């Protein structure tokens, strides 16, 4: 009896710091969020007015919301498949008994270490009007392209940057998965006359399905939350012409530029629902394929 009580005490002593932090900085904010969504909050006076679903109706009739919606979806649709594919192919190449694979791995991992703020500045310099990429295109094709001030291209720069910095991380995840594929599957395929490329599509890709599923899910969640790069590139404005306005950036603007905490929380809740729904749909589709294949 005493032992049991001691165990309970020990268990909760060990968990105490974690529970305090979770209650204060995760649970309370979640509860707060559910409450704030239905209010109009004036941060300066601290006054709250109940508006029911008012925040939501305002959001849906707001053109900036739809711009953020479009940008974020465009971003996810382009970035997730590209980063997943590049990461998988590079992992397969590194796993094909190449020499110096350790050296390749070490170099390729560098972008993942770099903070988004340093990386964004580096990319802004590359794509600046006097930057390497612009000068290169100019000397090759004689066209002076403006990337960061062109609404059609600014988001593309952010996409390229994100692919560049997340590929190495996912590549290592794939590499771990590749090591678990039984070698005899490849031997069997070779006997059937499949060349390396065919082996990749008939053995590697299907065997990596569970890992791809993880990479796609994490990629989706990460891409929907894109903030740092869009904030730094546009100096928080989401410009030019709202072309880099993402969901999270708009949430930030509502809360800290317009001081509209209620609407910001409502938008955060919508984003949460979207992430949840898209992840569920993608997971269901991929799982279905896995069963069929």
């Amino acid at each position, binding site marked *: 009896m005493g032992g049991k009580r001691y*165990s*309970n005490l*020990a*268990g909760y*002593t*060990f968990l105490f*710091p*974690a*529970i305090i*932090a*979770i209650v*204060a*900085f*995760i649970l309370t*904010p979640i509860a707060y*969020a559910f409450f*704030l969504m239905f209010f109009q909050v004036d941060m300066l006076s601290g006054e709250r007015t109940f508006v029911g679903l008012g925040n939501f109706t305002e959001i849906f009739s707001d053109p900036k919301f739809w711009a953020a919606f479009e940008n974020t979806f465009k971003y996810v649709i382009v970035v997730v498949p590209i980063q997943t594919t590049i990461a998988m192919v*590079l992992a397969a*190449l*590194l796993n*094909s008994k*190449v020499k110096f694979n350790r050296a*390749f*791995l*070490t*170099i*390729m991992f*560098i972008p993942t270490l*770099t*903070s*988004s*703020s*340093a990386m964004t*500045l*580096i*990319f*802004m*310099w*590359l794509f600046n009007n*006097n930057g*390497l990429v612009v000068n290169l295109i100019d000397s090759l094709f004689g066209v002076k392209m403006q990337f960061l001030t062109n609404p059609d291209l600014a988001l593309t720069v952010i996409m390229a940057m994100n692919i560049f910095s997340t590929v*190495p991380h996912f590549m*290592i*995840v794939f*590499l*771990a*998965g590749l090591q*678990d594929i039984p070698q005899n599957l490849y031997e069997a395929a070779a006997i059937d006359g499949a*060349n390396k490329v065919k082996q990749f599509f008939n053995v590697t890709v299907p065997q990596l399905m*569970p890992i791809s599923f993880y990479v796609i899910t994490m990629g989706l969640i990460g891409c929907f939350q894109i903030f740092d790069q869009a*904030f*730094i590139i546009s100096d928080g404005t989401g410009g030019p012409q709202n072309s880099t306005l993402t*969901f999270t950036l708009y949430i930030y603007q509502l*809360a*800290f530029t317009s001081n509209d*905490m209620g609407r910001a929380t409502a938008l*955060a*809740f919508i*984003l*949460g629902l979207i992430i949840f729904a898209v992840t569920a749909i993608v997971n269901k589709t991929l799982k279905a394929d896995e069963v069929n294949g």
Partner: protein
Amino acid sequence: MGDHMKKNNITLRIIVYTILIAYSLLTLLPFGWSVLTSFKTTAEIAGGGTIFPETWSLGGYKTIFESQYPTWVLNSVIVSLVVTILNLIFNTMAGYAFARIQFKGRTLVYSAMLMLIMVPTQVTMIPSYIVISDLGLVNTHMSLVLTTMINIAYIFMMRQFFINFPRDVEEAAAVDGLSKIGTFFRIVIPNALPAIATQAIFVFMAIWNEFMKPLLFITSPDKYMLTQGLNALSKQFMNATAWDVIMAGAIFSIIPIFIIYIILNKYFIQSNDKTTGVK
């Protein structure tokens, strides 16, 4: 094996190496270019032109070190170290409790945490700012420490680690009369160093690179974290197209992580697949 097959294999090898080398160069290019830029003079950058600096200048680095940059570096070092140490202790303790201590409500608390990990940060971003502001902690480093002192993902990682950890060492310690807390600090932690090192690397890197939280919580420039300071630096120097200064700041901010990476390279790559929780 026929000649044809062999020739095919050689062609394939060449393609594989070409792609890998090309991608490695592509990886290094932006960094190399930035390093070179950081050693140019502002005038030379405005003139465009050459790859290597015509005159190697330390002007960019001088400018950042005469600004508040050193303060930001120091802020980032202190906050990152404190956060890392707290995470190591608290996550490891919690993970150990879930793996090894039988207590009432263990399954319930564990599944509650599993659920919380799925709530996106955006949902809690604004309300946690309000909590921080209600606690009077806006514009203090304490706000960053308190909101990042634990990480549920690493609690899970440590739980998985301790589940596979041999029990006999702890049992021997218990026979010798050590308390649970004593056993934990004197026996368990020294034996869990590989998992703890893994955690340390990723927690440190995450807080060193964090941008959004400092942006929300910290308002005065002397308290900025380095990432936030970099953003301020770029705003200040971009109009003057002083890219040497901006690149010096960006490149220098990578150095601490880079040194850790070189020393702990093996851990970085191996541990990365452990934290993903795929296996």
